[in-house]
Structure formats: C-alpha cells, structure tokens
C-alpha cells in the first residue's frame, strides 16, 4: 500500500540524509550551514507528513528561520575561509565510521523494539495545536517547566559570559 504521503516521506528522508552527508563533505562553512538548513527543512516536512503540523511549523520558524540564521550570521561575520582537506586519521576510518554505524543501528533497534512506543503511522501524531498544548501543559507539565528553567539558566549563563567586565563593575 503505497500512499502519496509515504512516498513523500521516503523522498524527504533521503533529502534529509543527503543534506546531512553534504554538511560533512562541503569544505566551506557556509555551504555546510546551508546543508543543515536543508536537513531542518526536510525534518519539518517529515513531521508534517506524520501529522504534527504545529511541530513542523515551529521547526521551520525556530531552527531554520532563527537558529540557522544566527549560524550563517556568525560565519559571515568571522568571514570563515575554506577548510583544508587532510587525509583524515586512520583511526577514524578504521574505528570511527564502523563504530558510528553500529551505534546508530543499535539506537534505532532499541528505539523501535524496546522503548514501548513503536513505529508511528503516517498522520498519526497528535498534530493540532490544541492537542499538543493539552499534552504539554497537562500530561507533561513538570518536564516542560523543568526544561524552561534549564533554558533560563542557559540564557543567564550566556548573559554573564557576554557581559563586558567593565560594565559589571560600574
């Protein structure tokens, strides 16, 4: 049973992985950053196809539209040049790549078979903003609040790090 949604899901899955590989292969930081935008965008489409339209929109607004813009901004500001191509270490090729593959297969297997969630059908995620809001502010209220405090601490840390010392004393 091959529905349009399923075909689209596969296509954007391939686009997502291709973007991630391109991110590593590209030598110029700005091309890598733009590949990451592609990854974020195709992830948003995957969310949309799974039925989580609110998460998809937020993914685009926050990740592709704000965070990646800051990445690009910093790369432009520092005028980062192209990376030099090296041979790469032998350890990375012998241990790193197979290890990474093994690890990701293991994680996928554990998540699919032993996390108790299982696979999600196309369009089955709680999509409408109301359903999501109910989940966030009712079922998962405590984790949500704890996360918000975590983010607040991170913001305060960033402010402390970025503040100029002479300003703090005056």
């Amino acid at each position: 049973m091959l529905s349009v949604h399923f075909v689209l899901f596969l296509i954007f899955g391939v686009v997502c992985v291709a973007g991630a590989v391109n991110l590593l292969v590209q030598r110029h930081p700005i091309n890598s950053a733009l590949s990451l935008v592609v990854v974020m965008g195709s992830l948003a489409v995957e969310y949309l196809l799974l039925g989580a339209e609110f998460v998809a929109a937020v993914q685009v607004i926050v990740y592709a539209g704000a965070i990646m813009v800051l990445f690009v901004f910093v790369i432009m500001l520092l005028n980062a040049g192209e990376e030099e191509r090296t041979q790469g270490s032998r350890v990375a090729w012998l241990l790193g790549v197979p290890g990474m593959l093994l690890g990701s297969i293991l994680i996928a297997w554990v998540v699919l078979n032993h996390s108790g969630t299982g696979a999600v059908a196309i369009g089955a995620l709680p999509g409408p903003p109301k359903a999501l809001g109910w989940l966030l502010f009712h079922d998962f209220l405590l984790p949500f609040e704890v996360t918000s405090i975590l983010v607040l601490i991170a913001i305060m840390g960033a402010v402390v790090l970025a503040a100029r010392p002479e300003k703090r004393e005056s």
Partner: protein
Amino acid sequence: MGIALFIFISLIKIVIGLAVLLTGVAYSVWLERKVVGHIQNRWGPTRVGPFGLLQPLADGAKLLFKEDLLPPQVYKPLYIAAPMIAIVCAVTSISVIPVGNSVTVFGVTTPLEITDVNIGLLIILGITSLGVYGVALSGWSSNSKYSLLGGLRASAQMVSYEIALGLSLVGVLIMAGSFSLRDIVDAQAGHFWGFIPRWNIFTGQLIGFFIYLTAAYAETNRIPFDLPEAETELVAGYHTEYSAMKFAMFFMAEYANMITVSCVATLLFLGGWHGLVFGPPILQAILPVFWFLAKVFVFMLIYIWVRGTLPRFRYDQLMAFGWKVLLPAAIVNLIATALAVAW
C-alpha cells in the same frame, strides 16, 4: 471533490493570486513614487501613460533588457540563488491568506484563498523567516564590503524583530483561540452597540497592533528601519552588486513582503473582509473582497506615508528599541491579554 478537480481549481487560484500579487507589487512601486513625489512637492512619474500609470511596464521592460552583470569576485552558486530565495519566500506566503468567504462557481464551492490550513499564521511566519536567507546570502556571496555589511545588518535586525513580531501576534491568537486565519477573522465579526466593529484593534489589541506594525516595518527593511540598504552609508546594501532582473527580484520581494504584512495586519487586527455589506446578491459577494483590498491599500499607503515622513534610525538605536522597548511591551501585552481572557 475529486483530486483532478482539486488540482484544477488550485491551479486557477494560484494563477489568479500570482497575477493579482505581481500587479499589486508593480503598482505599489508606482503608488510609492507618486505619493512620495507629492509629499516632497514633486509630480512623480507623469510621462508614460496617463498619470504615469504605465510606468511599471516601462520599468519592467527596462529591467528585463538590461545586461545581467556577473561581477568576477562573487561566489556564483549563492549569488544566483539568493534573489530566487528572496522572491520565492515573498510570493509563497500569499498562498494561505484568505481574502473573503467561500464562493460557489458552476456548482463548485471553494474558499477565497489558495489553500486553507489550520496553522495559516504559522506558515506565514515560517516562510517569511526563511526570506532572510535571500538577503543574508546575497550580502555574503557578493564578496563586497557594502553588501556584506548590509547582509549582516539585515540578518541581525530581522532575527531581533521577529521575536517582538511573533509575541505581538500571540494576543490575537489567545482571543481567537486558533491559528487559522479564517477563524481569527470570524472571531472579529459583529459590532459593539450596533456600530463599532468588533475588530481586534478595538477589543484591547491596540498596543499589539502598533508593536506588530513597527516590528513588521523592521522585518521588511523599510524606512525608518532600512539600515540594510541605507544608501547614504552602504551604497545600496545587500543588493549593491546586483543588476537587471536579479536586482528586480529583490525589489519585487520587498514589495511582496509589504503586501503580505498589510494582509496579515488586516486579517488579524482590522477584521479581515468584514465591513458594510448591502445591496443585491452580486454586490454582497463582491463587497467583502473589496473591504479586504481597501484595508490592505490603506496599510500600503501608511507604509509610503511613513517613508516620506520619518528619518532613518541609527543602528544602535534600532537594536536598543527592538530589545528594550518593543520586546518588553509585547510581553506585557501578552500577559495582560492572557489574564483578561482567563478572567
């Protein structure tokens, strides 16, 4: 509705929507030149056609036939892609904007928008937030200092003002209880005491409205926030190195974004297509669309009026205003609205 019919109707609506939008873009430029001309005690365009009405066509022909220069120092792939990103993001966001209730033609009922989605507002915010890549990448890929400074200013400014812009809309969302632009407009139907319309601007969102308008001017890089293309210091900012149609794409993207901003302001704060409806059935069908377009037109006039009136901010003033005035005001507005609705 069958899939073939759906695609056929969507195609018709896309063609009509695109034609109206691009004509609107062309004549916004004409309107701006005319109105700013009169503000400055000049005539504006008068030679091509009556009142210079054919000036946009002449401009379009000129831009099409100009030589498309490719400066040698640019980074080619992104230099070519940047104007495309800008225009695509600017034009796509019009697809979820409803201009009226549904119409029935030849027994087929269809809503007056290209597609009706339940997160319409979020889609507009998402697409416009991607539009900044066009500006930022054009500045970087041109490999020229004026362009780079323009691109940097644009990306910093747009990310900063996006927060205030988003927060100023949440008040309206709380009152309507939906992300759907159609629901938001429907929530503003009716009148107080029979004559004051229940538009959000009259029901406590006046502050939100002004925050939105200010932040939106900054988002579209318009005076008094047009530092990314400040001609007195940056030549032309991010599009310094562009010519012919590539320059025109940035130009069209800017005006299309202005139209989108005006449409969103109309839908969210001024009651969308609600207005006086009277007369025979055919008039009753046309009037809502007329009211919608009239309100959008007023917003475009305000854009031009502000351009003819206000000087440009300094860059530190721009950042201080965005973070220290607009953002706190938007948060206070949000909390007040939430308390009022909960009570």
